[in-house]
């Protein structure tokens, strides 16, 4: 368990400058075999340093492990399949693809970009094929990261050009980007809840349940009080409350955390459905008609073409989500509380031996996480229609969980992954409105498919907090 691995962000082939790597290749070992019993064989190694001088980090030579190789090849194969599909799409593409950078109502009108569909799709397909080759061939480690990026961009560009080519309406770029942030908002907040919990060593599979409960609370309290703010606070309270359930059983009663998470999700689903059916539905007018979050336009900044729409005329929730990313990062990396949260997530016993109360720190982290999940949950009611419905979160909590893992338990990266899922989600609905031949049901699958592919493609390389999911018993 406690062998030392480098953080997964280091590229595999890099770190070879261990002195003394150049052990004699051939001659030495066979000599060793023939050596007489009394003789001594030695190998050339790093120059000796007295232990007292040894205070620097040592790194073993690294190479590609069997796991990494399998990972690389399967990623390559996946890109290859996508490239093949893209090549096929070339035959299905005709006409010009148009991308509108501005909406009709914008003050400043940016031009609509027109590209010939077929060549772009073809180039995308070729780029994907090239990326596939980079992945499949060994010894191209340096290029791999770029190849992955190129493949991703080529996929998006090729897919969009195919979808937009020959259509009467242009693809609305600003809508796409605006929708990305909008749809990513609950995912970002949900993932941040996960970051807080799991960095402290508590696995949180219950983000979904926390968000669902919060969505319900926001709708009801928002409807009763007629205040969005009250709704938001109610949502946070609900998120924290469900967090407390998680904390109580996971930390205090040492229950298996994955099973517990599933149970909490079911509890949330059953509870909200029951309350919704028996209390809320009969009086929908009073109890399920909450006011909506209004977009807040940031003075001046919202007038920036393209960016203004995307970043500066969102609801308070989207701003809060972005700010929360920084806040969570700051808490974890720059505060005493954060250092302690990380320590109990990695090695609770070590924390205990320096007098840190492991149970209290974990409780605090899980409750704090509940605030973010609650905010995220409020999106589904206050941010969309103001009304609650059965299972309104439709598994977004699990996508947030995927974003957390792909984001390697780091707030910034997790938020980036949440944005990726938001992007794919929005893409599905955009493409649908443009009238592509793909059925809308398949397009609705898109974010979930993307989740599976992305998690399968990346999860092999990540290492979470060492004590994640391990209850602490003195």
């Amino acid at each position: 368990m406690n062998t030392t691995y480098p953080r997964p962000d280091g590229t595999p082939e890099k770190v070879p400058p261990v002195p003394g790597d150049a052990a004699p290749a051939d001659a030495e070992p066979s000599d060793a075999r023939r050596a007489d019993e009394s003789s001594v064989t030695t190998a050339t190694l790093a120059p000796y340093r007295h232990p007292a001088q040894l205070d620097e980090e040592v790194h073993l030579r690294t190479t590609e492990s069997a796991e990494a190789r399998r990972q690389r090849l399967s990623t390559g194969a996946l890109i290859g399949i996508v490239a093949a599909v893209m090549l096929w799409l070339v035959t299905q593409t005709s006409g010009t693809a148009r991308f509108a950078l501005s909406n009709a109502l914008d003050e400043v009108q940016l031009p609509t970009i027109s590209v010939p569909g077929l060549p772009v799709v073809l180039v995308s397909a070729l780029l994907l094929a090239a990326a596939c080759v980079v992945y499949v061939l060994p010894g191209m480690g340096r290029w791999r990261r770029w190849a992955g990026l190129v493949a991703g961009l080529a996929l998006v560009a090729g897919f969009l050009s195919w979808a937009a080519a020959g259509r009467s309406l242009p693809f609305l770029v600003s809508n796409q980007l605006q929708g990305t942030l909008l749809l990513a908002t609950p995912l970002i907040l949900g993932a941040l809840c996960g970051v807080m919990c799991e960095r402290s060593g508590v696995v949180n599979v219950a983000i979904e349940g926390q968000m669902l409960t919060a969505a319900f609370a926001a709708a009801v309290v928002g409807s009763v009080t007629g205040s969005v703010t009250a709704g938001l606070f109610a949502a946070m309270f609900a998120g924290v409350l469900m967090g407390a359930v998680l904390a109580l059983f996971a930390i205090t009663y040492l229950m298996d955390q994955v099973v517990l998470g599933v149970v909490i999700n079911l509890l949330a689903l059953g509870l909200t459905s029951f309350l919704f059916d028996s209390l809320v539905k009969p009086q929908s007018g009073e109890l399920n008609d909450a006011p909506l979050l209004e977009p807040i336009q940031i003075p001046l900044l919202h007038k920036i073409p393209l960016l203004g729409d995307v970043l500066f005329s969102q609801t308070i929730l989207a701003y809060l989500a972005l700010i929360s990313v920084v806040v969570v990062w700051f808490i974890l990396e720059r505060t005493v509380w954060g250092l302690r949260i990380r320590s109990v997530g990695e090695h609770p016993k070590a924390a205990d031996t320096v007098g840190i109360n492991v149970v209290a720190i974990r409780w605090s982290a899980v409750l704090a996480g509940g605030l973010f999940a609650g905010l995220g949950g409020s999106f589904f009611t206050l941010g969309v229609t103001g009304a609650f419905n059965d299972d309104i979160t439709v598994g977004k909590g699990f996508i947030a969980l995927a974003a957390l893992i792909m984001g390697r338990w780091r707030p910034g990266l997790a938020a980036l992954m949440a944005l990726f899922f938001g992007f794919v989600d929005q893409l599905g609905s955009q493409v649908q409105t443009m009238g592509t031949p793909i059925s809308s049901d398949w397009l609705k699958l898109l974010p979930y498919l993307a989740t599976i592919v992305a998690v399968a493609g990346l999860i092999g390389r990540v290492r979470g907090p060492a004590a994640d999911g391990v209850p602490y018993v003195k």
Partner: protein
Amino acid sequence: MSTTTTAPIGSAADPAPQGLSLRGITKRFGTLTANDHIDLDIVPGRIHCLLGENGAGKSTLMNILYGLLDADEGTISIDGVEQHFRNPRQSMAAGIGMVHQHFMLVDVFTVAENIILGREQATGGLLNMRQARQKVLELSNRYRLRVQPDSRIEHLPVGVQQRVEILKALANDAKYLIFDEPTAVLTPQEIDELMTVMRSLRDEGRAIVFITHKLREVLAIADDITVIRRGKVVGQADASASEGDLAEMMVGRSVNLQVDKSPAEAGEPTLVVENLTVADASGQVVVDDVSLDVRAGEILCVAGVQGNGQTELAEVLLGLRPVLKGRVELQGRDLTKLGTRETIAAGVGFVPEDRQHDGYVSTFTVAENLVLNQVGGFTRRGNLRWDQIKANARAKVDEFDIRTQGIDLPLSSLSGGNAQKVVLARELSRPLKLLVASQPTRGVDVGAIEFLHKRIIEERDRGTAVLIVSTELDEIEALADRIAVMNRGHVVGIVPAGTPRDVLGLMMAGIPYDEAVVAAEEGAGDE
């Protein structure tokens, strides 16, 4: 300042005005009494060795002292004032510091983060890392324990990690420093260095408690010695005691520290490993171009500090890890293509390093564990033949002197030594070509060590090739016909038995044999 009590227990001591004193400490876990009315006096300016076998209750006692466990009975007082430690924070506040056997360091944290953890200097909850680094450097200079504040623990050699652990205790200005089995993971040279540190801390007026089961170390450094056996203080001594006396006190009977061993009559190479390279999941090369052979009727010991690739080497031989490059051949047959089951069938026996984890199923009975790898031989038409399994168990219990209340009891009821006997008995119960044993006597009491060593040598004399992975130089001295020393995945050299300890120690640090011999001679000249 001599408060060493040579008086027998019970008639103990007028209340010691100075220092830390434990009186009548008792701790029970269920029916087991881990500490039975233990009295101990720890005096500033002296090194007090707590000697005892694995499971004698040393660590329990120190965990009570450190506030990690509550005592059922007894009192702890410092300078005559009674203390009640409910958690480490309170004991640290009273000036007690501990260097844990398994370092209490967060692997992914830096040195500075580890040292300040729990006593962060902060303004308004914000970490002040610059000040923390400064503090680490000051401590490091003051105690001449070299560390770099920004190194990540997981990238540091164990010796340096231990320095961090010591600095952590000193950062708190601990007056009473407990070292729990600190030498287990160190090379002999690092042990010397550690002893120098301990002496200088003592000379500063701190009290040192040194917990160990290694007699050699005790005699090298102790001012006072307390021996614990089965939770009781069985005697006290000073540094003039002999190794034999201490061993007898520790074990409760006279022990033969040296196993009789005739020179090996080595035959043809049974196991040939050539240019073996193995990487772990993250791509680190843990076994790097290793070539060695083990001949029939010979014991090859692989020596090295924990974590230098020996464990992985042993696992590869059993087909438990994928091979990146190189050959492993058992009497000409390529093992790298075989799975573990085929490897076992090919005549390889394996005593894993972590027996509780990999060696047996602790909830299974003794009888079941004795046939785990050969259940097929005890079945008829798919049904287990319990009469045979039990007969087998009775025979093995006799043959290997396995002390158990019954063969139907779960293995978890056995002591470490007896559990290991079960593992060895099982592995030796079929004809072997090669026996691979990782740390065969780790956590095993002295009496059982003697027995296990004897059986391994008997197996060698039967013509089996034996490969032992060990970090204990005592064990290597007792068993090895040849010694392969590993450092950071490489075989530094293969040397004959009888190579001096300090040479082996230097080789464990990565120095080739020739240079190690020269350096060791110079080292000896210095003293």
